[in-house]
């Protein structure tokens, strides 16, 4: 797995352009590429904005003829006390749009989020072409 440290907004750009480029190199459609890169942008931003920084790991998946991208976002921040609430459209603890988590979930094929209060958040996504 490749790894990108996420500490600031520049790393968010690095993470999303990495996702875009991997998707492009793997022959993803423009739509699939745009979706995964946008989801990565949302989740990477949450890592630095809400999670006090962390990292993204990513890899290419192959299943038969299918090609996918798997990304894992890990931070050691405060965690999310109420995940159900955080996954709702429009919920935000910082008065922004609150479309990041639920939006990212809709853009990918597989979305898992795990958090223990005080021990950070871990999000895993998979996008198939």
């Amino acid at each position, binding site marked *: 797995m490749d790894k990108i440290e996420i500490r600031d*907004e*520049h790393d*968010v*750009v690095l993470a*999303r*352009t990495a996702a*875009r480029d991997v998707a492009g190199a793997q022959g993803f459609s*423009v*739509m699939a*590429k*745009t*979706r995964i*890169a*946008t989801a990565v*942008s*949302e989740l990477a*931003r949450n890592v630095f904005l809400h999670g006090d920084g962390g990292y993204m790991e990513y890899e290419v998946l192959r299943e038969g003829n299918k090609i996918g991208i798997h990304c894992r976002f890990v931070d050691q921040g405060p965690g999310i006390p109420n995940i159900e609430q955080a996954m709702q*459209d429009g919920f935000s603890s910082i008065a*922004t*749009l609150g*479309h*990041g988590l*639920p*939006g*990212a979930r*809709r*853009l990918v094929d597989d979305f898992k989020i795990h958090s223990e209060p005080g021990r950070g958040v871990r999000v895993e996504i998979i996008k198939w072409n």
Partner: protein
Amino acid sequence: MQSIPVLKIGPVLLVSIQTELHDSLAVNLQDTILYKIRDTRARAVLIDITAMEIVDSFIARILSETTQMASVMDARVVLVGMRPAVTMTLVDMGMTLPGIDTAINIEAGLFKLGYELCAIRQDGHAVREPALMETVDGQD
């Protein structure tokens, strides 16, 4: 630090975003546009995002806010060149861009704002330029 140029064409400001927009650059751009509207008393702003492959919820919010603030200052904003995949991704995410007007390219955006590039005739009158009309629906 890098910045994004805001060009002035008469009463219209033209902003063409060609670099990756990290968050503070986006916030910066918003400020620049609003100050420039004030300083030049511009009536209209074209934001050209043809080059942008990714518009996430943060960037969408900044663009939408910029539009609303410009409107308070009596200037209209048109977003030009949004890629179909970007539009669809925002829709997928459940994001609407409240109050945002879009157009396919710069000419179409100018037109929407009530402006048009005209050829100047010998007698000093402006005439509509047929070459321009052709391209309004064309590709860039």
